[in-house]
């Protein structure tokens, strides 16, 4: 798109325009604030909650350090200690780190991209509330002595029924599985937001690095989280029904868990780190007063890191007795990933060197990050060497290493971000003086606590021990570590004082661009984002366009009011950011809120084995989602002029529309989940091929199941034609037939397996066969709900050849169900026959 030669909208704007914009984006007040969906409000809630969990898990860290301060301490019992370190790690990783960066994305991205809001505000709010309720309940298990105690990576057999008969492990499996669903919801929101709601002119190469990192972050969540979700499903099936996926003596394999967990767990480290690197890439240029050096190289490095991090997972398993080929493979890959990280560090240093760095609190935290994270990277290369890892594994050396990486790579940048961005959202700046105090306390405290741990580990202290005997040379080092931990706490306390004294969140009159930054989030902001949507002609539009802030605020740029009388944002093309249509986004409501609460209740009650109430909550959750969906399916409303002679449609279906993108991403998530399953199936076969059946004990060829899928496919195709031709009755009938055929196909397959005498709890193989059915049943259930919704919309005349999003969404997922069903049949019926022939 060419830059407009003059302002797209004439000035001055009529008075009523702003008043109307304000009215449409009005924030609910009082206790109704919880129904708000504006990205800023949800962003505040989200960050506050994540920070709360940081404090809570931090307190657990202090408890750990207090217990370990002196030898043979009796401050905590062994079992309590186990729960506390498990909760510390789990809460830090799942309830603090991932949500905190997701929250920063939700808060900053629309502002930074020049959108009025994210494309699915209620989905973002849903993700937050699900996390809020689920997280709090999960944390409170600690107060009842019912918290998990198997370590944050929950290895079976320790976490199997035999060795962890209590309810704690189930809380971990269902609670964390559920919180991951919330993270995925947020990721879908972020992907579609970054790709489709950028301001006109903001091509991918003019997109701020933070947005790049959030895009990669969300993309990695899509592919990594399903692996651990599958793992939790399998382990929960094993615990609840005795399907022996991970029990070696019954034809399972305990290492399968480790593969699945770390296929998620290693990328997780980068999922946490990359957005932090994105924040640093925003802060450094501003504080140095020069553009980022090597923008494109940084983007390449970020993408490389994202990809390579999927090829490293086995380096967490070097001591499990895996074959030499795996050792070599993953050791080498682990070292290769250091290269792109190095590129980033050098680019930041070059930027600092090419400008003049103002030594603000934010800059200090960035420098602290560079120092601490680099040290963590160096010890990372050390433990990537197999012989070294054999010595250091499961000692305090590793505890030191990953705190340097996690605390350095994520907590320092986060504090830098707080000091840097606070003026954009607060009436008052945070105090530079307190900020510097906080920095030095945290920096010195952190190194005092964790530097000695390298030594403690090398002289032999294992991690996860609740106490140790005196006289092994560990005493002083542990005492020093404990003192350091309390120094960190003191620094965090200073920061809290600063927040209380100075943070005054606002949606109208923030201090604004105190650092003279160049990116869009520093334009004057309101509940509706900027008054008008700017045209972006460079990486730093505020630096490159004269009077941008003034003209944007006066309404001279695009869409200065509301075109349809509801909340809107401009949708642009994914790469070149050409305006495509004006999308209506939803406002405050209750449905997504009750959906979140009931979904959380469903999972938690299920854990407590209160099945009937759980199912009731599940039904209420689905009903809430129905209401929510009904409210977010607006009718086409003609064209909207956004200025500069551009007139855009206000309704879109098909590959250009935001909902299509969201469904595609959702299908990718489901696909990744299923691929993890295929991997597990094949992996288990390589370990225990003996439990795979001979062809003669298999059920016959799945003729019935295949015909069911085929019939369903034909119905889908015909239903699509009916939508085009506007045949409402036939459409509903075809959808019904198609979904019934889909269900029948699954039922036929389960029946044939059962009939052939195959029972899920016999061996790893039979458990895998039924796991396939479980996964397919999930997808079919989703298709069923979506079909019900589409049929309902059609019955009330709200699906036709133009207004067809409800059907398009169904069709995409339906197609996915057909594909997965076919693949499943191929795997469960075809593979054993093929393997027998090998």
């Amino acid at each position, binding site marked *: 798109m060419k830059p407009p030669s003059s302002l797209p909208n004439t000035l001055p704007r009529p008075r009523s325009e702003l008043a109307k914009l304000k009215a449409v984006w009005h924030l609910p007040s009082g206790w109704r604030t919880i129904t708000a969906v504006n990205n800023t409000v949800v962003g505040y809630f989200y960050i506050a909650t994540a920070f709360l969990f940081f404090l809570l898990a931090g307190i657990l860290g202090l408890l750990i350090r207090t217990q370990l301060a002196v030898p043979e301490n009796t401050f905590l019992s062994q079992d309590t200690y186990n729960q506390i370190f498990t909760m510390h790690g789990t809460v830090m990783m799942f309830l603090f780190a991932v949500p905190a960066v997701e929250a920063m994305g939700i808060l900053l991205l629309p502002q930074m991209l020049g959108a009025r809001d994210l494309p699915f505000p209620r989905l973002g709010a849903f993700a937050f509330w699900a996390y809020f309720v689920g997280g709090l309940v999960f944390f409170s298990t600690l107060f009842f002595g019912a918290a998990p105690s198997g370590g944050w990576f929950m290895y079976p057999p320790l976490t199997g029924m035999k060795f962890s008969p209590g309810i704690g492990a189930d809380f971990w499996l269902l609670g964390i599985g559920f919180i991951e669903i919330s993270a995925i919801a947020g990721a879908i929101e972020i992907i579609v937001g970054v790709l489709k709601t950028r301001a006109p002119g903001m091509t991918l190469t003019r997109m701020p690095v933070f947005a790049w990192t959030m895009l990669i972050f969300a993309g990695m969540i899509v592919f990594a989280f399903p692996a651990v979700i599958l793992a939790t499903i399998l382990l929960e099936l094993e615990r609840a029904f005795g399907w022996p996926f991970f029990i070696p003596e019954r034809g399972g394999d305990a290492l399968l868990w480790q593969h699945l967990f770390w296929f998620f767990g290693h990328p997780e480290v980068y999922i946490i780190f990359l957005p932090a690197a994105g924040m640093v890439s925003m802060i450094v240029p501003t504080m140095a007063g020069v553009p980022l050096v090597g923008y*494109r*190289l940084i983007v390449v490095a970020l993408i*490389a890191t994202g990809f390579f991090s999927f090829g490293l997972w086995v380096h967490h398993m070097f001591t499990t007795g895996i074959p030499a080929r795996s050792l070599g*493979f993953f050791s080498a890959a682990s070292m290769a990933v250091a290269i*792109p990280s190095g590129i980033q560090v050098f680019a930041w240093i070059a930027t600092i060197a090419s400008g003049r760095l103002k030594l603000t609190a934010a800059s200090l935290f960035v420098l602290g990050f560079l120092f601490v994270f680099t040290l963590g990277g160096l010890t990372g290369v050390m433990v990537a060497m197999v012989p070294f890892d054999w010595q250091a594994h499961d000692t305090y050396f590793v505890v030191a290493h990953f705190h340097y990486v996690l605390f350095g790579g994520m907590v320092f940048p986060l504090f830098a971000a707080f000091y840097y961005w606070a003026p954009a959202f607060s009436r008052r700046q945070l105090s530079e003086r307190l900020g510097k105090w906080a920095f030095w306390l945290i920096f010195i405290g952190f190194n005092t606590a964790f530097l000695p741990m390298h030594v403690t580990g090398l002289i032999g202290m294992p991690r996860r021990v609740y106490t140790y005997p005196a006289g092994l040379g560990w005493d002083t080092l542990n005492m020093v570590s404990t003192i350091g931990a309390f120094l960190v706490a003191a620094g965090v306390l200073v920061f809290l004082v600063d927040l209380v004294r100075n943070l005054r969140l606002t949606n109208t009159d923030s201090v604004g661009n105190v650092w003279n930054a160049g990116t869009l989030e520093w334009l004057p902001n309101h509940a509706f984002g900027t008054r008008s949507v700017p045209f972006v002609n460079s990486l730093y539009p505020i630096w490159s366009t004269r009077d941008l802030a003034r003209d944007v605020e006066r309404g001279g740029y695009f869409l200065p009011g509301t075109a349809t009388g509801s909340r809107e944002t401009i949708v642009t093309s994914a790469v070149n950011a050409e305006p495509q249509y004006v999308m209506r986004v939803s406002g405050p409501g209750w449905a997504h809120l009750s959906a979140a609460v009931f979904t959380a209740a469903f999972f938690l009650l299920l854990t407590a084995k209160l099945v009937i109430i759980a199912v009731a909550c599940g039904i209420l959750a689905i009903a809430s989602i129905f209401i929510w969906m009904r409210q977010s399916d607006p009718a086409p409303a003609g064209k909207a002029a956004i200025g500069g002679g551009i007139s855009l449609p206000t309704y879109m279906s098909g590959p250009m529309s935001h909902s299509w993108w969201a469904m595609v991403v959702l299908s990718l998530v489901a696909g990744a989940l299923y691929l993890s399953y295929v991997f597990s199936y094949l992996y288990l076969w390589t370990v225990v091929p003996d439990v795979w059946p001979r062809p003669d004990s298999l059920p016959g060829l799945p003729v019935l199941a295949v015909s069911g899928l085929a019939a369903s496919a034909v119905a889908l195709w015909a239903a699509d034609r009916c939508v085009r031709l506007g045949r409402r009755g036939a459409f509903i009938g075809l959808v019904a037939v198609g979904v019934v055929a889909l269900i029948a196909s699954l039922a036929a397959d389960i029946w044939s397996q059962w009939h052939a005498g195959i029972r899920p709890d016999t061996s790893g193989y039979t458990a895998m066969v039924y796991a396939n059915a479980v996964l397919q049943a999930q997808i079919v259930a989703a298709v069923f709900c979506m079909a019900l919704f589409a049929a309902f919309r059609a019955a009330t005349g709200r699906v036709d050849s133009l207004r067809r999003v409800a059907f398009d969404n169904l069709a995409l997922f339906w197609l996915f169900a057909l594909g997965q069903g076919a693949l499943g049949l191929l795997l469960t019926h075809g593979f054993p026959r093929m393997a027998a022939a090998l």
Partner: protein
Amino acid sequence: MTNFLARLLLPFAIWFAHFSISYGATTLLCSTGQETGVHRTVMVLATVLAVILLIATLATSVRVLKSRPDRIAAAAATGLAVIAVIWTSLPAVLLDACS
């Protein structure tokens, strides 16, 4: 422009394919009891193929991409992917894989 993103992703997609295929193939060959020689040949072939593919995509990228910074970025992506491909396959070729 559309090409730019594709050109950045392509080298890493090739790396990923090489990674999955060589890891999968060695696992499969070792667990079905093939001798090391077979596996070594497969690894060398896969690696040579991946590197050729990478260089070929870079050649086309340089032609398709108009601006110099974009070309440099594509070259950097290819470079990283080549290093990663060779680096990961070295131990698998040099070590006795199935032990």
